[in-house]
């Protein structure tokens, strides 16, 4: 067990180093940070001086090395754009993104699994076909369009829900601010969560359906039927639990994707999360924020992977003895 976690951590470090290396190799082509850091009156000499001071003239390897050594001490530098320590900036935005991801993830999971099971059990019913087709609409239109349409309908025309932002937030401790505790906070979550979750929901639904259909054909389900177990016990106790193993993986990876896809949703809904921060940083070539964000995403993926593996462990007893080493 310990070895397993250690392996994972080691692997993750390598993954993160590579992520950092690749991102650094790429940043230099994204644009020139200096042009947005200085006003139009700045002279060429001024620009050069700033460039020099920031070490942007150093060879890419040196920049990378500096970044890694500082990052190891938890120092990701100062945002070129917002002039605040990057770590603090990202941490202050993280709760918004995580809450959004969580809610949309839960929505996607609950509805995805629910519809997935339903459509698997009633494979030829008209309701199943309808659910299957309608859910596809969600993935057949780009996220930004869905977001804007929702705003238009629910915020402008019906005026039921807020069109932007997080509403009132409540600070919990130093590190967390939550929108769950206020009514405006909760109302503000609805549209972005739907926008973000729709795609994942469709995905999970289809996956659950496919896996469930597979599992329902297995011998042990046949044997369970032959023992006269109730349909409930068979569908939800035996079949669904076995379906969950692959579903957990995909959902886990999807959670990472949700956080990444939040970029679009956050932009559309002016949701103050890390995704919006990142996209603004790209526009401003705010290298420290971009680098830190990518590392964060890598960390989140690694953590999620780890959790997924541990969940596997909990769900599937077969893995408890022999699986330890094999990654997937």
């Amino acid at each position: 067990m310990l070895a397993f976690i250690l392996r994972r951590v080691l692997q993750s470090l390598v993954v993160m180093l590579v992520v950092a290396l690749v991102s650094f190799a790429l940043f230099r082509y994204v644009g020139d940070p200096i042009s947005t850091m200085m006003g139009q009156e700045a002279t060429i000499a001024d620009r050069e001086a700033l460039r020099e001071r920031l070490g942007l003239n150093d060879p890419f390897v040196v920049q990378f090395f500096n970044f890694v050594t500082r990052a190891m001490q938890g120092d990701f530098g100062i945002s070129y754009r917002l002039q605040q320590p990057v770590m603090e900036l990202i941490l202050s935005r993280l709760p918004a993104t995580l809450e959004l991801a969580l809610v949309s993830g839960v929505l996607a999971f609950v509805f995805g699994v629910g519809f997935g099971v339903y459509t698997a059990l009633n494979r030829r019913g008209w309701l199943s076909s309808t659910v299957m087709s309608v859910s596809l609409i969600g993935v057949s239109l780009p996220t930004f369009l869905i977001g804007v349409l929702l705003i238009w309908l629910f915020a402008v025309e019906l005026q039921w829900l807020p069109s932007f932002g997080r509403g009132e937030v409540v600070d919990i401790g130093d590190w967390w601010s939550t929108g769950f505790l206020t009514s405006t906070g909760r109302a503000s979550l609805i549209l972005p969560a739907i926008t973000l979750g729709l795609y994942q929901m469709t995905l999970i639904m289809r996956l659950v359906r496919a896996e469930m259909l597979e599992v329902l054909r297995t011998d042990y389900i046949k044997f369970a039927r032959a023992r006269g177990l109730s349909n409930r016990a068979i569908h939800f106790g035996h079949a669904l639990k076995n379906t969950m193993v692959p579903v957990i993986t995909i959902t886990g990876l999807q959670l990472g994707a949700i956080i990444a896809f939040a970029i679009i949703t956050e932009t559309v809904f002016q949701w103050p999360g890390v995704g919006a921060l990142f996209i603004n940083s790209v526009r401003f070539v705010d290298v420290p924020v971009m680098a830190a964000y990518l590392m964060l995403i890598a960390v989140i993926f690694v953590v999620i992977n780890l959790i997924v593996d541990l969940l596997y462990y909990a769900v599937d007893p077969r893995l408890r003895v022999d699986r330890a080493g094999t990654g997937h």
Partner: protein
Amino acid sequence: LGLSLAAASAETIRWARVGDALTLDPHSQNEGPTHTLAHHIYETLVGRATDGSLTPRLATEWGIHPDDSTVWVFKLREGVTFHDGSALTADDVVFSLNRARGETSDMKGLHAGVVEVTAPDSMTVHIKTEGPAPLYVQNLTNTFIMSKAWAEANDAAEAQDFAAGEENFAVRNANGTGPYTLVERDPEVRTVLQAYEGHWDDAPEVTEIIYTPIAEAATRVAALLSGEVDIVQDVPVQDIARLEQTDAIKVEFGPENRTIFFAYDMGSEKLQSANVDDNPFANPLVREAMHLAVDRDAIRQVVMRGQSLPTGVTMPPFVNGWTEELDAYSAPDVERAVELMAEAGYADGFSVDLHTPNDRYLNDEAISQALVGMLSRIGIKVNLVSQTRSMHFPEIQNRTTDFYLLGWGVPTFDSQYVFDFLVHSTEGARGGWNGSRYSNPEVDALIQAMATETDLDARNEMIAQVWAQLQEDRVFLPIHNQTLAYAMRDGINLPVHPENQPSMADVTFD
């Protein structure tokens, strides 16, 4: 009755625009939205009225020293206090101006000619420049005054240094003399300001400001339509009509201090992206043809939805040196343009890249696209390279573009600002944005001379001379001056500010 009512009731304004102030440190970013917010918390020596004229703020009087034409004298307002209660003195002003000139300040470009700032007494400040600087005062409208004691106590005596690796205290905290105090600041999310009771001026009607940036245009408009915000800046031009028609919403218009124009490399031997071996832009006939090909009215009508002022000169009307004759533009004449192209030896046209930003000016990409269509009619095949601002501007600064769109505002309200950056040959501090590679020694000499000319009439004559030359040489292809539109709830009055720096302190309620 009405007056007392307005003053008594607490009025909150929820205000949205596209982006947030990047920092509260008043000297570390020379950028519009940052200054706009700073104007609510900090003050400058002189301000800018909505008609573009200078107004007294912390300085009540100013002028060139009668004995020394290189010294500007400012008399400070009595009874001004910072939000922490301390009184404003000349020391604070000296400190602030020096801070703004500092190595890490982004405002230093505006104070490049300053040699020394001194305080002869506690209410007077002297600013000495290298030579006579008759227009220097115009540079001060965005240079904010901080409390020396506060800054030093909080280790913020210099503007934020990016390379330092640490955050400056002044980035998220503020202690100004302005009409509002900072209550809450969550960058890019929400900034809350409260009226400062100790402010020297009349108490503003707006007592609380909640400022929320909303990046997406559609969302911004939606927020106003759904009543979630009261004032929206940066209204997309296409939505203005709809907003005007909406009950309980009105839109205020006004000209902005920014000209949108195209410029082309007319100085190089050969273009970087063209399919011909020479430089067609160096040919005056080609430049003339391009002018004739452009239909500015169509751009105004369709692209800008009527929300622009087409112009024939690269400066807005507020600017010293502007005249109606310069502003006039010729009607499009494609036939003539085609003839000129043939005359110039480009009967078959040529192809060239056009660089345009797509997230900087109102409909910047669409304007460029429209130009592509217009030029294609006279045989110039334009490849449009549309990119984000952080990619676009370096192309101009590094001279890697042949043909580009640029918007230029004139914060000093004087033509020299345009000449210095866009026209003068690239030398030292001048000509940094001269992507046209225009180089005319006579013009250069005039520009240098007008910088120190204290006789305003003579100076104005020089300005007119330069403009005449520029127009004749067709150095720029001006399109229009941007206009601004602020949309707001009915009952709110907020005049449009030419620098797009509205002050909520100016808001009145019906």
